[in-house]
């Protein structure tokens, strides 16, 4: 076999919430191949008991994120060639989340915090009211639009060392969601959001290390969104006391 057709050496984390270890697999190398393809090949041809999660396969749904060689990545849009180290690649469940089984992380804490940060939309008008016009070029709308392409893949959450050290911290995705709602003219309850992000796990715990922004597969900038929340909460802090 020449170098191009030699199989990939893949270490896959196997286990559950109690613990586990890496298992080695040999996977045929292909010219075009994503990490998700590799995981699927193992599940279909080597070990049908391998558990993992995916849905759309095209970077829309945010369900297939895993740690690839120690870095959080969307596996459906990660080419093997980009991450291969000497024919070897290591695949593990997302960091900073409990493991359900094998490569499937428990996303509950991630979405619970998304809600805790005030992430559920509360409309400012009912269906009986006229639809308010939104100018896409309006300053607040531009800031909201910068963050709404989040697919909730939890890659930023897995990349964040503040989340790793502080289990109460809401994390980049939830806080960016809060920021987009704060800047959304159709969302009611500005002070509810500011209160939700000002608690012990709130935006003020962020150290601006920026791993969220570096790793975001959609090129969003949660670090700046969190800085925006700090700015608005500071403003309301002085507003309240004057």
């Amino acid at each position, binding site marked *: 076999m020449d170098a191009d057709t030699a199989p990939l050496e893949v270490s896959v984390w196997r286990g559950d919430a109690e613990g586990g270890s890496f298992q080695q697999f040999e996977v045929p190398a292909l010219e075009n191949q994503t990490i998700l393809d590799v995981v699927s090949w193992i599940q279909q041809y080597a070990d049908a008991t391998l558990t993992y999660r995916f849905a759309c396969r095209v970077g829309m749904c945010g369900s297939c994120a895993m740690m690839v060689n120690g870095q959080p990545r969307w596996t459906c849009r990660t080419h093997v060639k980009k991450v291969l180290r000497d024919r070897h690649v290591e695949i593990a469940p997302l960091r900073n989340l409990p493991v359900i089984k094998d490569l499937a992380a428990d996303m509950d804490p991630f979405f619970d915090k998304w809600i805790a940060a005030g992430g559920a939309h509360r409309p400012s008008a009912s269906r009986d009211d006229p639809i308010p016009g939104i100018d896409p070029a309006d300053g607040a709308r531009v800031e909201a639009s910068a963050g709404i392409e989040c697919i909730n893949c939890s890659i930023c959450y897995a990349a964040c060392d*503040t989340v790793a*050290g*502080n289990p*109460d*911290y809401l994390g980049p995705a939830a806080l960016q969601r809060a920021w987009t709602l704060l800047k959304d003219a159709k969302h009611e309850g500005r002070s509810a959001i500011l209160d939700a992000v*000002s*608690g*012990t*796990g*709130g935006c*003020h*715990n962020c150290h601006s290390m920026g791993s969220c922004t570096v790793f975001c597969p959609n090129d969003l900038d949660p670090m700046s969104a969190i800085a925006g929340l*700090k700015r608005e*909460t*500071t403003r309301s*802090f002085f507003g309240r006391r004057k």
Partner: protein
Amino acid sequence: MLDLRLYMLQRLSALIMVPLTLGHIAVMIYAVQGGLTAEEILGRTQGSLFWFLFYGSFVLAVSLHAAIGLRVIVYETFGLRGTTLVGLTWSIGLLLLGLGTQALVAVTWPGGV
């Protein structure tokens, strides 16, 4: 861990210390020329209301700032929580405030105590 109140205290103490720190560094660069002696330090600072207020606010701000900063590090690194964490924050702050006040009095109080 860090709520809005602690965050504001941390940032405001930092803001106060920006001019104080730069002033302190400037004094150091000026004062170290030709070496330092106890007499030289006291000659500059003893009985001076300006240096008392300068270093007095510095000691106050730094005790606050360091206590909150160390609280974050201890929490994130060792996972200390609850009353232990609160107690540690206050102990660090009061220790620094105590030692700082002692040093402040030593170098700025007119003619010694």
